[in-house]
Structure formats: structure tokens, C-alpha cells
């Protein structure tokens, strides 16, 4: 005990043995940003190869390694850890808790990540190359026909699952046990609610993913035939197991983003969220429905028609609570007094572009039309609208929103706005044309394409370079804020902000709420 209670340890020890939720949150955020840049670099290679028809830069085999690693790193290395980082920083401060409930486990769940991604990245240098079977790793391409590095990939997935499960248990335990007196369930900020539900989703589906990769491991090394028809197994079983994890996974990615947007929009509209209760119920229904729609990713595998119909109807249903969310954000803006600082811009960008992604989602859920859309660039466009303009935009907005609270300095507003507009234009240039080529017949995951798709692909590549480049500006803005931003000292950084996190000093001291606040 003693000294460690008052301030952080010095030097490297502070980080390696970190148990403070803010330090761990910071590490998560920086780590995920590093992964974002790495996954982004792979995306740049992909888009550079696709700049023109023909093979110019990379061989098809390596191209497949790039698409696979890009997807895996973005989903598991960038988006998920960034929201865990945000949860670490904000949940205790939002519910008036002194820290996370399980600080040592918190340390472990973070420190599993860097070696895991090192392991995953090292497969690029292995004999036979990195995994090249897509982030969805369908068997038997990922078993019988996989490069030897697949075993390391499986191990990496296990470790990631471990880390996510520990992170989720921590969040669940914190929310159950450490709420300040008076912080009843229906007073919890929406970010806390969405994360609380997400944590349960993670605990439910991560073991399923672990099961899928374990069956792969058995098939590859121990002679079983879970996914091999020749031995009595079924390759489609893999897809069912994978998507039973995979569809809830996409909501794991987006629910915390919903939470962020539901915090930021009321602040800059200077008006409370229109329907708090319905937002909570919508989140819960989305979470529930996300368990019964997985096979909409598999309409073309040849399911019986009853199965197709069930998954189609269930998927259509998800659009209802998703719509409720969008309507709520807009009615929150309605008759507010809005200002458009960078976090708000990113949230408005989120609402517009996520909704477009939702529209294409509804289109994709129609099984007969999906026979045309499936595995085409139309799907690529869809999920980048929901994952990049959705999850990543909201995360970017969140960083701008809470950065002054975290470091006591204000970022450069003009630079933030420029970052937003470049991102917005670059993103749309990159991904909107992908709807066109997808509908016109361009399959996804190909290193080269027919000449008729050339112009839109070139546009798309230019857009991707612009969006990628704008992240350097973001990095610069954040670092220059931390080092030399204009100091802010108001507890309430934003005029319209509500919530316990704005009642602590700015910058947030190392320990907050050592004595629980009383919530009225």
C-alpha cells in the first residue's frame, strides 16, 4: 500500500503493472490506434493493387494475405480494443466508481493483446505466408488448404477471445457492483448501457468462436473431420458456427458506437436525448435479435427454403429497433440549439452514413436479391458504411469529445474540422462507388478485375488514400493537443455536457470518485 495510492508509478513500471483504469484505457486506445494504422497500411496495399486492372504490385497469393490481415486487424485489433479502451476510461467515471471492479484482470486483458498481434503479424514472414482465407476463414480453405501459419492464427484467436472475455467480465462486474448510490439502471448513461449489453454479447459468442477454431485445429492436426465432407463432416457447419459468432460480433462493434453517439448529440444539441427508455429497449432488442439472424450471411449455401425465410424475416425485424435509434438521434437534434464542434460533426457523419449502411443492410436481408449482392463489392460497401463510417467515425468523435477531459488541453478545432471533412469526402469517394461495381458484378476479394470496373475502382483507391492520409492529421492533432494544446480547466468542458464525468476536475485526476458521489 502507501505511495502507489496517491499517484502513478514512475517510468515503464507504471504501464506494465498498470491497474488504474485510466492508464489501461490509455494503453488500449494507443494500441488500437497503432493497429488501425497497420490495418490501414494493408488496406493501402490492397487499394494500390486495385488502382488499375492488371497485376502491378503484388501477387494474388499475397493479396489474399493482405485482405485477410486487414480484416482481422481492423476488427480485432483496431475497433474492438478502441471501444474497450473507451469503456475503461469512461465507465467508472460515468457511474461514479473509483476504478474497474477487477483491476488486475484488466491489466492482463490488455497485455495479452500486443504479443497476440505480434504473433499474428509474424505469420506474414512464415513459410507459406500469412493466413490468406479471408477474415471469415471458411473451411476447408482454412483447414485442409491452409498455409502452415494457420496454427498460429488459431492460437492468436484463442488469446483474443480470452482477452475480450476478461474485458467483458470486468465491465459487467463494474456496472453491477460499482454504481454510485442513486445511479439506478434507468439513470445510467447510454454509453454504459450499450457497453453493458455488448459485454454480455461478447461473453456469449467468444466461446463459440473459440469452438470454431478449436474444431479447425482438430481437423488440421488431429485427424477429425468436423468440416470435411470426405470424413463425414460438413463445411457449411463451419459457416453456421462462425456466423453464430459473427453476426453478434458486428453488433458488438456497433452498440458501443451507438452509445457514444447518444452521449455526444445531446451535448451539442443542448437538449436531452429524445427517448432514453426506448433507446435502452432498442439496444436490448437488437442484442437479442442478433442471435437469430446469423444465416443471412449464408443465403447462397443452399439452405432449405424454410431456413432462408426464417432468417430473412428475422433480419428484416432488426431494422425496426435500428430505425428507432436513428429517429431518436434526429428528434434529439430537433429544436435544440446546435453547435458543430468536431465531435458533433463526426456524429452527424455517423448518423447519415450509418443510415445508408442500414439501408443497404435491409436490401441485403432480402434473400432473393442477396443472391445477386452476396460476396460482391456491394457487401464490401455495406459493411464499410456501418463499420468505418459507423464505428470508426463515432470512435473518432469520442476521442475529440473526451480528449480535453483526459489531458486538460483543448485540441485544435480548425484542424479537427478539416480532419472531419477530409475523412468524410475520402470515405465516400472510397466506398460509394463500390456499391456500383458490386451491383454490376464485381466479386469481392479479387486482386484484379474486368476492365469495365476500372474507373470506379480508381476513384475508390483515390478516396481510400485520402481517407488514410487524413488519419495522419488526426494523429498530429491528438499529439499536439497532449503536448501543447491550450489548457482547459472547467470541469464541464462542453457547455451542454451532462453526466458524472463532467463533475470531476479537468484534467481528470489519477483517482476519481474515491468517495462515491450521490446521484439525484
Amino acid at each position: 500500500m502507501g505511495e502507489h495510492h496517491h499517484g502513478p508509478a514512475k517510468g515503464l513500471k507504471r504501464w506494465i503493472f498498470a491497474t488504474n483504469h485510466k492508464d489501461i484505457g490509455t494503453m488500449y486506445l494507443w494500441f488500437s490506434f497503432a493497429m488501425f494504422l497497420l490495418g490501414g497500411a494493408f488496406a493501402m496495399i490492397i487499394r494500390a493493387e486495385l488502382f488499375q486492372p492488371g497485376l502491378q504490385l503484388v501477387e494474388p497469393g499475397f493479396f489474399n494475405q493482405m485482405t485477410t490481415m486487414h480484416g482481422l486487424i481492423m476488427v480485432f485489433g483496431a475497433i474492438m480494443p478502441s471501444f474497450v479502451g473507451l469503456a475503461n476510461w469512461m465507465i467508472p467515471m460515468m457511474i461514479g466508481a473509483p476504478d474497474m471492479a477487477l483491476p488486475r484482470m484488466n491489466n492482463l486483458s490488455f497485455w495479452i493483446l500486443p504479443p497476440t498481434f505480434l504473433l499474428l503479424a509474424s505469420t506474414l514472414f512464415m513459410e507459406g505466408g500469412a493466413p490468406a482465407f479471408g477474415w471469415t476463414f471458411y473451411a476447408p480453405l482454412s483447414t485442409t488448404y491452409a498455409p502452415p501459419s494457420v496454427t498460429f492464427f488459431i492460437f492468436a484467436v484463442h488469446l483474443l477471445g480470452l482477452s475480450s472475455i476478461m474485458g467483458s467480465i470486468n465491465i459487467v462486474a463494474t456496472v453491477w457492483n460499482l454504481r454510485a448510490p442513486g445511479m439506478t439502471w434507468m439513470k445510467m448513461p447510454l454509453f454504459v448501457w450499450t457497453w453493458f449489453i455488448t459485454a454480455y454479447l461478447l461473453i456469449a459468442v467468444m466461446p463459440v468462436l473459440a469452438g470454431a477454431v478449436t474444431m479447425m485445429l482438430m481437423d488440421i492436426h488431429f485427424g477429425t473431420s468436423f468440416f470435411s465432407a470426405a470424413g463425414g463432416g460438413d463445411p457449411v457447419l463451419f459457416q453456421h458456427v462462425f456466423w453464430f459468432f459473427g453476426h453478434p460480433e458486428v453488433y458488438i462493434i456497433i452498440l458501443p458506437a451507438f452509445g457514444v453517439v447518444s452521449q455526444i448529440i445531446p451535448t451539442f444539441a443542448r437538449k436531452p436525448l429524445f427517448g432514453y427508455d426506448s433507446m435502452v429497449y432498442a439496444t436490448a432488442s437488437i442484442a437479442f435479435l442478433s442471435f437469430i439472424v446469423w444465416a443471412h450471411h449464408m443465403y447462397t449455401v443452399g439452405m432449405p427454403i424454410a431456413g432462408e425465410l426464417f432468417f430473412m424475416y428475422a433480419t428484416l425485424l432488426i431494422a425496426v429497433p435500428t430505425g428507432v435509434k436513428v429517429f431518436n438521434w434526429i428528434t434529439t437534434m430537433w429544436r435544440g440549439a446546435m453547435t458543430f464542434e468536431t465531435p458533433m460533426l463526426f456524429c452527424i457523419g455517423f448518423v447519415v452514413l450509418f443510415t445508408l449502411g442500414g439501408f443497404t443492410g435491409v436490401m441485403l436481408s432480402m434473400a432473393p436479391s442477396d443472391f445477386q449482392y452476396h460476396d460482391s463489392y456491394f457487401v464490401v460497401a455495406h459493411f464499410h458504411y456501418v463499420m468505418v463510417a459507423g464505428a470508426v467515425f463515432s470512435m473518432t468523435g469520442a476521442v475529440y469529445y473526451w480528449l480535453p477531459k483526459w489531458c486538460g488541453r483543448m485540441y485544435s478545432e480548425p484542424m479537427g474540422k478539416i480532419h472531419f471533412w477530409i475523412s468524410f469526402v475520402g470515405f465516400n469517394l472510397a466506398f460509394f462507388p463500390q456499391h456500383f461495381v458490386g451491383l454490376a458484378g464485381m466479386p469481392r476479394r479479387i486482386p484484379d478485375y474486368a476492365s469495365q470496373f476500372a474507373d470506379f475502382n480508381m476513384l475508390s483507391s483515390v478516396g481510400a488514400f485520402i481517407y488514410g492520409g487524413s488519419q495522419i492529421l488526426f494523429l498530429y492533432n491528438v499529439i499536439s493537443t497532449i503536448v501543447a494544446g491550450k489548457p482547459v480547466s472547467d470541469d464541464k468542458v462542453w457547455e451542454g455536457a451532462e453526466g458524472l464525468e463532467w463533475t470531476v476536475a479537468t484534467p481528470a485526476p489519477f483517482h476519481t470518485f474515491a468517495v462515491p458521489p450521490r446521484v439525484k
Partner: protein
Amino acid sequence: MCFKAKRLHRLALGPVLSLLGLTSRLAWSDDTKVNQINMPVSVTEVGASIYNLHMTIFWICVVIGVLVFGVMFYSIFAHRKSRGVTPSNFHESTTVEIAWTVVPFLILLVMAVPATTTLINVYDTTDADMDILITGYQWKWKYEYLDEAGENLTFFSNLSTSQEEIYNREAKGEHYLLEVDEPVVVPVNSKVRLLITANDVIHSWWVPELAVKRDAIPGFINETWFRAEREGIYRGQCAELCGRDHGFMPIVVNVVSQQKYTDWLSDKQAEAAEIKALMAQTFTLDDLVKRGKDVYARDCQLCHGANGEGGIGKAIAGSSIATGPVATHLDVGIYGVSGTSMQSFGKQLNDVDMAAVITYQRNAFGNNMGDMVQPLDVFNHKQGQ
């Protein structure tokens, strides 16, 4: 240059036209496929209803989008602090909340009806006029026209675009990456049932204009169908990531008149009969080498190099296998080498071609073995082991 300018012109016009709802028709002639921005209308009835479903949902989304974003942008414009407004404090309204749950639900209910009927139609594979068994291989398609008498017509369909074009050493042709050596030929207005499976990993057979996409899964046979109502050449690609050359296994379906189809079929059957006759024949070394050279260029060169120098695969020139015992050499050719990119060619090449190419490899690139392999040797080798 002129070509480029025209393309750019189209690029600028495309989205504008689409907004006017004109493209679906324009997209039709072969010419305007460049920069096409919408789903092809399809030449099958099912495809047309899929297209209509697609456009219906699209327009519903457009209307909802205009309403929702209209409200939002109006609010962004009118309810901004810089205009001096004071924020109101209203929130929660059960009526509004019930409305915006029930209305979307009803819209979805309406949309589910055409989706369901179309799906039922897609799944109705009864009363087909003919059956084709399609097998996906890494990285080509095999087509087998099933015949009641058991005389199935079988052939492989490979990408015919040259490596020179792919690696930008030659100008790209009009159907770059969407051309094959042997297209599927089917008669117009006939219900063609497709039985789809795969030999190795999962592939997916997709031809947008026929509105067919169905996964080819090893060990399972999927069924689907189409009835093309217009003659023409329809091109598609494999749609499921299947390894290195996933982007290089196109599909070409040639829909022709009944008469042309019958002619084509009898030509093909005659060809098959000829091969059968050849199988029993004994060839001279020269004949085998000559035939083998073509087979090599078509099926081996990509990996083993034009001069047998190797590349993706091992060198043939001076290789211990090509200059070793014939039986081992045949093993490699027929069964492949598992765990490497050397696949098994035993099913893909007929025995004549296999004999020819093995003989060629043993007598080319400085491998002067002087021995030869006859079709019968290949046949016996396959039976014997």
C-alpha cells in the same frame, strides 16, 4: 485517348443518369457495361423479379432517406445556436415512439411478400429440360451435361486471358478476365437445372445476368436453375474466395437457339468419340511431343515456365522426376503432389493429353529421355494404382 475521354464522360454522366432512373435500360447494350452502376436487369423471369424487388426496396429506402435526412438537415439549418435559438427541452412521446416502430414494421411486412414469392420461385427446380453438373476446382470449372443414356458430355472451362495481359505486358482485350476456353452452351427458353458442387474448397457460381449465384461446396450438391429468355453471351465469376486464383476463374454462358445448341452438342459428342478412338491408338514420339507442347502451354506453363525453368512450381528442365522413372512422373501428373500447388490433372486431362504432355516433358527443355508414354499406359497406370 478518345476512348479514355469517352469513359470519363460516362463516368460523370453515370450517376446523374442513374438518379433519373435511366440507367437500367441504358446498361443494356454491351457497350454501356463500362461503368454500369446498377444490377443488370437479367434475361430470366426470376432475374427480372429479383431486379424489381431490388429496385422496390431501393426506392423505399430513398423515400425514407429523403424524409429522415430532410428533417435532420432542416433541423441542422434551423435549430443552430448561431441563429440564437434557445433549446427546447421536450423528450419522450409515446405516440411518436409507437408510430416509428409500427410504420417501419408494416413497410417491412409489405416488402417481405414479393421477397417470399420470388424465393419460392428460385427454389422450384422441378420440370427441368436439362441438367448440368457444375464442379468448382481450384481454379476452373468443370461442366458435365447429364445424359439419360449415361453418355455425359464433360469438359473443363479455364480462363483464357493470357498472363501477358494480366501482367500488363500486352494490351488488355475486350473481355479481359471474363473469357474462357470452353463456354457453357445452353438453348434459349429451356429450363436448365444446375447441380453445383466442388472438388476442393468452396467456390460460388455467379452469372449476374442470369441472376444465379449458388455456392459450390465439396461433398454436397446444390440445386438451382435458370431459363434464359434471350440469346447472348453472359459472363460471370467465382464469387467465393477459393484461394490464390479466385479472381481468375470466370464463367461464360453462351445462350443459343435450339438448333445451334443441338449442332454444338453433336460436335462435342463427335469430339468425345474421337478422343475415345485416339485412346486406343499408339502414337509416334513426334505426334506425342507435338500434342504435348500445346497441352503444356495451356495447363503447365503458368507454374513451370515457358522453358521448363520453373516459377511457382519446380523446374521441369533437368528435374529428377521428368528424367526419372515413368511411373513416378505419371503419379505426379495424375495425382498431383499434396500440400503443394501441384494439383492432380488426372481428371482434367484425357489420357491422350496426359500421355502427350508427359512425353513432351521428358523430351523437351533438354530432357532427352527418348522414351514415350502412350494413352493406354496412362489408362493402365490409373487402373493399376
